[in-house]
């Protein structure tokens, strides 16, 4: 890397910086971080989950611990509070950590503890979305999609702004994380992303208007009475 302007070495102005560690802006940075963090976590005794590489599981001497890593956001839970604290202090000596305690806001999802469990809500995100697409003053509707007329690929109406269409679809797709009720509508409208027309745009706005009514809805994670795996199969 070039020497930073303003801090060029007086003796060796023609020298370049050989990077020993990743710096912001490099393409490898997220991967390098992931690798160095993973190496450390594995050395402590965690092992990677088979289904998700960013989930680390600790299972030794009756102590269970789970560590979720999303680039630089960590979520830790486990059976033994003492082990967790010990691990957290070890981590903060190795990496510069900020301990936030109980997660209130993880990946844009607000985690609200209730009497029955947890409520995952994205109302802040939805409000930002409504503001971004100038739909704050829109009239709300009760259903996400119009049921009487099926959406067709082309019914002769004028083409819509496909870039804006895809932008809204993308923003809505993140909401489906906690809003399974929107999954069908967004899936249906995503099928016209390549060539949206005004009818599709109207339907998309209807979804956003529905969101406005149901802005405070969220996914409720209830406390399960027992933890058992249930499997469902379907013969093909």
């Amino acid at each position: 890397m070039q020497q930073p302007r303003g801090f060029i070495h007086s003796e060796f102005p023609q020298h370049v910086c050989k990077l020993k560690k990743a710096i912001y802006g490099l393409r490898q940075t997220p991967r390098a971080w992931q690798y160095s963090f993973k190496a450390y976590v594995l050395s402590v005794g965690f092992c990677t989950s088979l289904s998700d590489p960013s989930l680390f599981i600790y299972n030794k001497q009756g102590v269970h611990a789970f560590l979720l890593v999303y680039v630089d956001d960590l979520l830790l839970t486990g059976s033994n509070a003492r082990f967790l604290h010990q691990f957290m202090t070890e981590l903060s000596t190795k990496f510069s950590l900020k301990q936030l305690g109980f997660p209130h806001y993880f990946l844009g999802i607000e985690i609200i503890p209730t009497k029955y469990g947890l409520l995952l809500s994205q109302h802040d995100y939805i409000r930002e979305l409504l503001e971004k697409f100038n739909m704050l003053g829109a009239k709300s509707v009760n259903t996400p999609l119009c049921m009487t007329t099926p959406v067709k690929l082309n019914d002769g109406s004028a083409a819509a702004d496909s870039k804006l269409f895809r932008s809204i679809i993308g923003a809505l797709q993140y909401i489906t994380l906690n809003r399974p009720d929107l999954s069908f509508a967004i899936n249906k409208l995503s099928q016209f992303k390549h060539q949206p027309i005004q009818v599709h745009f109207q339907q998309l706005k209807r979804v956003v208007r529905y969101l406005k009514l149901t802005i405070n809805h969220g996914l409720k994670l209830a406390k399960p009475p027992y933890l058992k795996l249930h499997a469902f199969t379907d013969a093909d």
Partner: protein
Amino acid sequence: MHIFALNHCHIIYVSRHVNFVENSFPYQSIIKPFPTCPLIPQYDSTLHSIIHVKKGQNTNINEFSNSAPVFVVPTPSLLLQPESSSSPLSEPSLSPQHELSLSLQPDPSLSLQHEPTSVGIPVIKYNSPSSTINFVPDQVPSLESNNPVQRDPLVTRSQHNIFKPKKIFVVTKHDLQENLEPSTITQALKISHWIDACSAEFNALMNNGTWTLVPRLSHTNVVGCKWLFQIKRNSDGSVSQYKARLVAKGFTQTPGLDFKEIFAPVVKTQTIKVVLTLALGQGWSLHQMDVNNSFL
């Protein structure tokens, strides 16, 4: 193709089949240079040229259509403009040439041959040896004498005195205000708190052992770097921190050469829900942590 030919008998010949020999100019030596001819009639000043043809032999139409000389009369399109015809110069004069020229229908294909800048040199193309040519150079007025507003129907903003100052040189000489973020390191290094911020970032990188200085090798791609400046504010708008950050220009890296794989995994949403449910079901405590500087 319509070709209009004039001779001294005031006859117009129209021929549909014409061969243009454009690369040879066989009568260059015969054609005299065109002096300012005393025979210039008083005709429309907007007319650029009229070609007189003196033919040695009697020619008829058949000869013309086969091998007769072909004359391209540059017919000015200005003839069509109402203001030129209403100008006092274009009042009917007694000269026969003028009548002839007015009777010509301007052909767009012919007007292609005409260049306004080549004043006095009409374009002539011919292929027959049986004629001598005498030119009457046109009395084209210079562009300055003509009113360009009359000629050009386009209305520009400057005609209505609408001017917009050019924006390219609008640069302030004054020092940057305190509540603005500098965009370059040169700007930043004039202000003390930004110097402090830069030094703090530089020292942090040095303490971290981020790089070592090495002589530049010729075969290596040197990635550029850039300072970014940001003002961190409290919720009431007051400045809490002046932050400088050195970033590498990752877009100058070449895939396959400077880096091979850049994929970094992200969490599946199902995993988050499973972990949360598990913690809830077992009554475990949840902890969130945030890594301060992830460039490790």
